[in-house]
C-alpha cells in the first residue's frame, strides 16, 4: 500500500466511483454514506442521495451519525413520511442503487444483520433488517461496502436478513419486478462481483499493493478470481482531499454536539 492513503480511504474512494452522476441512491449509514457523499462532492454532483428517514436529494455538509440527523432534512429537496419512502420510492422503483453495509456477507452476497448463532439463542444479537430487505429487491441494483475479514465474509450467513442471490444463487430467478441485486462488493482489499453464471462473488479488481493471498486469507470461502482481474485505480489527490475534508468537518461537528 502506498504511503499516500489508507486502505479505508481506498475502499471509500473505490465505492464512491461505483456511483454514476445522476443516479438516485438509497444510502445506508456509515461506509455507504461516506462513499455516496464523496461521489456527490467529486465526480457525481447530480447524484440523488436518499436516506430512509424520508429525506430526498439531500446534500449534507457533514456525514450524519444517524439515518435521521437534522442536517439531512435541512439540506434535502423535500422530506417525505417513512411510509411514503418505502411505498412510493423504494417499492415504487424510483431508486437506481441501494448502497448497503452488513455485519456478515456470504458467497452468494446474502447479508446478515440479524444475529450470529441461532435465532432463539443468539450468540450476538445484531440490530436487524431495517430498510435493507426491500431495498435489496426493489432498487435497480445494490452496492455493498464493508471491510474484508474472515469473520465478515463467510461461506454461508447464519441468517439471511437481506437476500443477495439466496442459498444457492437462484433466489432472483423468475421473480417478477425484482432488481438486479448485489452487482458489486467493495472492500478494503478488492472489488467483487457476482459470477454471471453461478452468482458466486468473484474478485474482479484488486486494490494496489494487495496480494491475492491476502484476499484468500480474509475470505471465509474458497474465493474465485475472475479471468480478467484488473488493478483498482488509486485514489486521486482531489478525491483524498475532499474525503479528508469531509471527515474532518464531520468530526468537528459531532464533537461539538
Amino acid at each position, binding site marked *: 500500500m502506498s504511503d499516500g492513503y489508507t486502505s479505508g480511504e481506498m475502499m471509500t474512494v473505490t465505492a464512491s466511483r461505483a456511483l454514476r452522476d445522476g443516479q438516485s441512491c438509497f444510502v445506508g*449509514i*456509515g461506509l455507504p454514506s461516506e462513499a455516496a457523499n464523496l461521489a456527490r462532492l467529486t465526480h457525481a454532483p447530480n447524484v440523488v442521495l436518499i436516506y*430512509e*428517514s*424520508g*429525506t430526498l436529494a439531500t446534500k449534507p455538509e457533514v456525514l*450524519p*451519525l*444517524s*439515518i*435521521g*440527523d*437534522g442536517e*439531512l*432534512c*435541512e439540506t434535502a429537496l423535500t*422530506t*417525505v*413520511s*417513512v*411510509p411514503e*419512502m*418505502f*411505498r412510493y420510492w*423504494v*417499492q415504487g422503483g424510483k431508486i437506481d442503487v441501494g448502497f448497503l453495509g452488513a455485519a456478515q456477507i456470504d458467497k452468494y452476497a*446474502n447479508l446478515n444483520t*440479524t444475529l450470529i448463532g441461532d*435465532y432463539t439463542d*443468539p450468540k450476538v*444479537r*445484531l*440490530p*436487524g*433488517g*431495517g*430498510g*435493507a*430487505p*426491500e431495498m435489496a*429487491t*426493489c432498487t435497480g441494483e445494490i452496492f455493498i461496502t464493508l471491510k474484508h475479514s474472515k469473520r465478515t465474509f463467510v461461506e454461508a450467513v447464519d*441468517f*439471511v*436478513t*437481506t*437476500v443477495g442471490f*439466496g442459498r444457492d444463487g437462484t*433466489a*432472483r430467478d423468475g*421473480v*417478477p*419486478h*425484482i432488481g438486479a441485486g448485489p452487482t458489486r462488493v467493495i472492500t478494503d482489499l478488492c472489488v467483487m462481483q457476482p459470477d454471471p453464471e453461478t452468482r458466486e462473488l468473484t474478485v474482479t479488481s484488486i486494490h494496489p499493493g494487495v496480494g491475492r493471498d491476502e484476499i484468500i486469507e480474509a475470505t471465509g470461502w474458497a474465493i474465485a478470481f475472475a479471468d480478467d482481474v484488473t488493478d483498482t485505480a488509486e485514489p486521486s489527490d482531489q478525491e483524498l482531499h475532499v474525503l479528508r475534508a469531509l471527515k474532518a468537518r464531520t468530526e468537528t461537528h*459531532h464533537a461539538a*454536539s
Partner: protein
Amino acid sequence: MAEFLSLPDAIARYVDDGATVALEGFTHLIPFAAGHEIIRQGKRDLTLIRMTPDLIYDQMIGAGCAKKLIFSWGGNPGVGSLHRLRDAVEKGWPRRIDILEHSHAAMANAFEAGAAGLPLAVLRGYIGSDLPKVNDQIKFIECPFTGERLAAVPSIRPDVSIVHAQKADRHGNVLVEGIVGVQKEAVMAARTSIVTVEEVVDTLDTHPNACVIPGWVINAVARAPGGAKPSYTHGYYPRSNKFYKDWDAIARDREAFTAWLDEHVHGKTHQEA
C-alpha cells in the same frame, strides 16, 4: 377533541399495564419525556412497538416496563448495539422479553394500513429473507389480477400511540415538521393517543399542506419542552450525538445503567426532566 393534560396525567390515564404502546419518531422527535414518565410510573408488561427502538426503548426495557418488543432495526444509530435490549433478549435481565421483528418496509406499511383502517398491509417484501421463518405474522397472498406473490402483514393498531411534535394550537391541532417518520400514522392507527409538544401557540401559522395532526384524532396533548432530548426537534434544538455515544458505556453495564436511571429518571419529576 384533544384534551390538554399534564404529561403525568396523560400517561396515567392512557397507558395501562399490559397495553400495546407505540412511542414513535423516526430518529427525530423521539418522545423521551413520555418514555421517562412511563418508567417513573412503573408501567409493566407493555408490548412496545417502534421501528427503531433507539435509546428510549433501551431505557424502558432496562427499567423492566416491557414484555415484548415489535421492531425493525434495534441499534444505537451510528454507535452500535442497544445493550439493555440485548441483555433482555440474551440474558433475560431484568426480565426476558419476546421479540417480533420486521423489516422497515413492513412496519411502515403496517402503520400506514393501521391509519387507513385496514386489517392488513400488502407489500412486495421479504423476498428471499429468513425473517418470515421467525415471524409468524408474515404471510403471503396472491394478487387476484396478476397472480404475483405478495407479502402481507397485520396492520399495527396500538392501544396507545405517543409522539412528540413541535407545537399545538389551543384546539390541540398539532404541527409535525421535518423528518415526520410514521408519527401521523402511529397516532391515526391507535385506539388512543398522546402528543407531547414543545409549545402551545395561538395559531400553527403554517403552509397549506403541512403535516398537521388534527386535535379531533388526538386524546391528550401535553406540554413537554425539550421532550425529545437527547434526540432533537427540528427548529428547536439539535440532537445530542454526544449523549448517544456516551449511552454505549452507560448501557453496557447493569449497575451504571441502574445508577443513570435512578439519577436521571426516577430522581426527577416531569417538570425537572
